[in-house]
């Protein structure tokens, strides 16, 4: 075979996965974690799916009429009903005897907050739907307002730091524990920084009969205040610090984690982002909040036993070694 250089267009095309559900040309910001997560998810899911999408950035930046970046059958209804729309599609396909699978896409608002009741109902009824939460930890589409997923002490436009406040007063909702309490067949977290792990989890969820749930940590350069070129680095640090544990659950029981080879201090993660800038002021309260966030990370590491026993191919340093055309991904 005539070897062409890697950058040659035909070579790149040939090395593409066979199917792309979300095409380029959409209007996401540079470095958008959600766009990357949606592309990885739909690549792994393949073409025989129908997607229901909650209101949010993903819906807005992919479908400015008359354009659409989707190569999948796709519907957006309203903000809080994506799990129910997906449930209805699944019920219809089941009755028709069709094997097409149903995906529900939502941001953290559409998952943790306004869409939560419909999500809980869908899981309780056991619809064969994969619900994917693109978690960027605030209402980004409306201009960065705090959500139930916003981390403690983070600055958003509705949790601003000031004389009386150090950002968000409340904790990030532990959504996966709530999902686990539904005892659905499969639930997991993933991160755009670990794409092979993410893809594997999508495929596993698709192979699972019944409701499954995937929470993908997806940095938002605009809302988090970091360089768009550092999306992967920021996402990776969230995992390496223990602030965003990568775990898998079956029927609510923990079955796997991505071990942290060498935990990094949370400040390494926080200092890259403007939303935590106020925590680095010379202020007693700022120091206490930093300690608080470090304690949260430590607690996650302890709770899920995230500390690795030594270098492994599947840990926070090894798992990114995704071979794509022979080169390292990261």
């Amino acid at each position, binding site marked *: 075979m005539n070897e062409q250089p890697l950058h040659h267009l035909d070579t790149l095309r040939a090395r593409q996965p066979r199917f792309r559900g979300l095409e380029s040309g959409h209007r996401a910001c540079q470095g958008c974690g959600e766009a990357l997560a949606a592309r990885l998810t739909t690549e792994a899911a393949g*073409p*025989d*799916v*129908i997607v*229901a999408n909650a209101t949010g950035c993903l*819906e*807005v930046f*992919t*479908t*400015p*009429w*008359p354009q*659409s970046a*989707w*190569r*999948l*059958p*796709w*519907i*957006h*209804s*309203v903000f*809080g*009903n994506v*799990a*129910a*729309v*997906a*449930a*209805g*599609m*699944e*019920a*219809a*396909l*089941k*009755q*028709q005897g069709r094997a*097409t699978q149903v995906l529900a896409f939502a941001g953290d608002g559409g998952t943790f907050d306004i869409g939560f*009741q*419909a999500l*809980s*109902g869908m899981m*309780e*009824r056991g619809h064969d739907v994969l619900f994917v939460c693109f978690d960027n930890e605030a209402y980004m589409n409306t201009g960065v307002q705090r959500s139930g997923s916003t981390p403690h002490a983070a600055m958003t436009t509705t949790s601003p730091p000031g004389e009386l406040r150090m950002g968000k007063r409340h904790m990030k909702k532990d959504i996966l524990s709530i999902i686990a309490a539904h005892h659905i067949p499969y639930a997991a977290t993933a991160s755009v920084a670990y794409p092979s792990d993410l893809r594997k989890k999508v495929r596993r969820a698709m192979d699972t009969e019944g409701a499954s749930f995937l929470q993908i940590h997806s940095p938002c350069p605009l809302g988090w205040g970091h360089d768009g070129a550092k999306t992967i680095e920021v996402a990776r640090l969230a995992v390496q610090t223990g602030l965003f544990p990568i775990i898998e659950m079956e029927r609510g029981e923990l079955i796997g984690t991505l071990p942290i080879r060498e935990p990094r201090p949370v400040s390494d993660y926080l200092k890259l982002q403007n939303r935590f800038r106020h925590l680095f002021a010379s202020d007693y309260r700022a120091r206490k909040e930093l300690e608080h966030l470090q304690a949260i990370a430590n607690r996650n590491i302890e709770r899920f036993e995230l500390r690795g026993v030594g270098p492994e191919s599947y840990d926070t340093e090894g798992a990114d070694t995704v071979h794509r055309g022979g080169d390292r991904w990261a």
Partner: protein
Amino acid sequence: MALALEGSQALARTVALCRPQVVAAYPITPQTHIVEGIAKLVADGKLACEMVSVESEHSAASVALGAAVAGSRAYTASASQGILLMAEVLYDIAGLRIPLVMTCANRALSGPLNIWNDQQDSMSMRDSGWIQLYCATNQEAVDTTVQAFRIAERCELPVMVCVDGFTLTHTLEPLELPTAEQVDGFLPTYSFRHGLDPSDPRSLGTLVGPEHFTEVRHAHHQALMQAQAEIEQADADWAAVVGRHCGGLLEVRGDPDARLGILTLGSVLGTLEDAMDADPELPRARFIKLRSYRPFPAEALRKACEGLDHLIVLERALSPGSGGIVGPEVLTALVEMAEPPRVHNYAAGLGGRDLALDLYAKLTQAVLGAERPREFAIIDADLEMLPESDR
């Protein structure tokens, strides 16, 4: 063969005859007997259908929406607070032009809590872009439900069949149920040309900016206006099958030569007709049964009002701070007439207050001889119950 059936049971069996593949519902009085009936038919293997018992009306409408776009005939039913909770989804269903049928078992809205008949719930969805058909009897509810599926699927518009709570839903009446052959012959297999399918991926419910949104709304409005012909056609075609008609857009009954008209929506018509028939001393009236409230049949209404001196618009709902809801629309439609009748607008029977036979005399006496339209009033309000300041 006539059967003595509770309205809800008749509706459950009629919906089943229409072969929905997905039914989604959340229980609310007085809709419950309908969905319980459907659930039992599914459980007994008499209806091949996914019965999705959801956790809210918001999800009931959403499940039906999802099922319809994924290629299945879908149905839901609700009432009152349930209609309000699903409101944003109802608007979305209509705006996306998704063919669905729902029954609204008309009930008052809170607060204060009231579970009885009142049409404020469906009236609150007047501007959602759904077709709304009001039923005067349980037989009409049965026949309208079958027609609704065909209207919805031909017009690509959702249809709300409005059935008075308790007065119809919980009342036994002798009625005829159609046969499966009759329904199958009338109602083709469900198809939705904007449905979602991986073999022809399309995006539905996209973000539409100012450069296109106006035209989307215009097209939706036109679709509703044009649905008038389909509503008439469906009624005529169904009448050819079963020998019963529901009146198309509206129906003129009573004394066609009367100079006094009374326009009603829903089941109150029977009471007024009985009252007039029972007492030959009472003034005669021409009854206008408004069946299609959306689309609003202005042309048919003008024709029905020709020769009238007075028209009473009687409503079972209220727009606080204005008065009637249907009345002002009727007035607007009749302005085009060369000699329009004087329009008198009343509400009555709110929150299930019993409408007895004496209502007819009360209404006719209030307006006959009037030189000007009477001021809007809730005609059966007992002001003695209220402090002076609230009268």
